[in-house]
């Protein structure tokens, strides 16, 4: 083992961690918002909305992110009407495109996860809320939302961890995050294993921290499911 080399590699890779984290947080945030919209459309009574949402989920869950990202970044730029539209100043930026395609993709998955959470909300608890005069957004905010979110949390944690790993693809569109930097180091040094093991350690630690945080959140939100405290 060449410790000097590993130390040097770690230093280089750690410098790219902020980029990975930025990609991750932004895409989770915007993907989550988009997912709410999609899931709202998916459960809507209007067949146009729900079919659009179904199609969206199908396309973004069914094809590799690599292809999606390629088409968003290199594909959109091929169309003159996009290149000359007001969007181009944004879409021109690789970082924006990377976040955009990550968010589009995770929204598809997250919408499905949220929907299964919605299905788990007991109809009877919704009726109880209606019967005291709750409806619309109040009902969603106070009753449906919290219960559905709690139910969706385990699956959502998995999705979040996958997103951390998915940011690795951003180097395809010239956003150099941890995996991209690792690959660049490899093509400079040809020491595949050492570099990749360092990268793996970084991802493992990131994911471990995130999973612990999610577990903590889950614990806090599941007081009502745990055994009652012993009255002794």
């Amino acid at each position: 083992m060449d410790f000097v080399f590993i130390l040097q590699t770690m230093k280089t890779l750690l410098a790219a961690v902020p980029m990975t984290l930025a990609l991750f947080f932004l895409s989770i945030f915007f993907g989550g918002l988009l997912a709410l919209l999609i899931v709202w459309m998916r459960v809507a009574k209007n067949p146009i909305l729900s079919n659009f949402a179904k199609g969206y989920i199908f396309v973004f869950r069914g094809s590799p992110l690599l292809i999606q990202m390629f088409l968003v970044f290199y594909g959109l730029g091929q169309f003159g009407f996009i290149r000359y539209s007001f969007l181009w100043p944004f879409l021109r930026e690789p970082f924006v495109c990377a976040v955009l395609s990550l968010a589009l993709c995770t929204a598809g998955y997250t919408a499905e996860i949220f929907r299964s959470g919605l299905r788990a909300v007991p109809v009877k608890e919704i009726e109880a809320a209606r019967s005291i005069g709750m409806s619309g957004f109040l009902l969603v905010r106070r009753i449906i939302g919290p219960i559905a979110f709690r139910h969706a949390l385990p699956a959502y944690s998995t999705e979040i961890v996958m997103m951390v790993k998915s940011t690795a693809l951003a180097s395809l569109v010239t956003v150099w995050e941890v995996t991209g930097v690792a690959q660049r180091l490899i093509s400079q040094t040809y020491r595949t294993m050492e570099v990749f093991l360092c990268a793996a350690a970084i991802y493992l630690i990131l994911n471990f921290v995130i999973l612990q945080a999610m577990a903590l959140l889950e614990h806090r939100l599941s007081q009502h499911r745990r055994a009652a405290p012993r009255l002794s």
Partner: protein
Amino acid sequence: MVHEHSIEPATATVNRLSVRNIRKKFGSLEVLRGISLEAHDGDVISILGSSGSGKSTFLRCINLLEIADDGEIWVDGEHINMIKKHGRNVPASSKQVDHIRAELGMVFQSFNLWSHMTILQNVIEGPVHVLKRPRAECIAEAEALLEKVGIAEKRHAYPAHLSGGQQQRAAIARSLAMKPKVMLFDEPTSALDPELVGEVLRVMRSLAEEGMTMLVVTHEMNFARDVSNRVVFMREGQIDCTGAPAEMFSGESSPAFRQFIGNFRG
């Protein structure tokens, strides 16, 4: 004692609740076939009937969890407006629906407490978020209510940690916290063991004594006979007969009702 197949005129006076000629179909199944009923201040009306006779559906139509295909409903003198849409009845204003529901307390057979909230949170949820009253005031009232139904010490527990009888009483407290004009109970004791039945009935009895207007779907003949001031017997989506409990149980009722209470050795 009246055999009640005719339509009562709905006089919008001191009637807390007035229902006229309610009909409801599920697909081709006619579950309610013209039900009319009036409840005055302080009335405690027991609704009896065999399984599938439409008792739950009737209560659910009153607080608009189901929309009746036909008929009129007044709550505390206010008429619930309906319009036809695609040939189906729908409430004219969802604002009115919410407001009417807030005036009607409903206690479900299966409690339906919100599992992610403590008992106290369950009770203050409606007053704080629907009626938009100050939180501190609501908490004080909620604690008094929980005291009254006898589960004050459980206020910070979650529903899953309570016994059935305690959950049922919490559900009653939750309804009462909305200060409803009328309480609707759907088989409030059928899932409870005999001891818990006693607890819940005690609470309902005290409500009756305070003059709360109540409609109670129940299988508890003792309650129907001793607590309510009127008994309604439903059969195949219609009111088969109705009257004061003393008359009904003493035999001055329809043959179907006599057969129904056959097993009951009051």
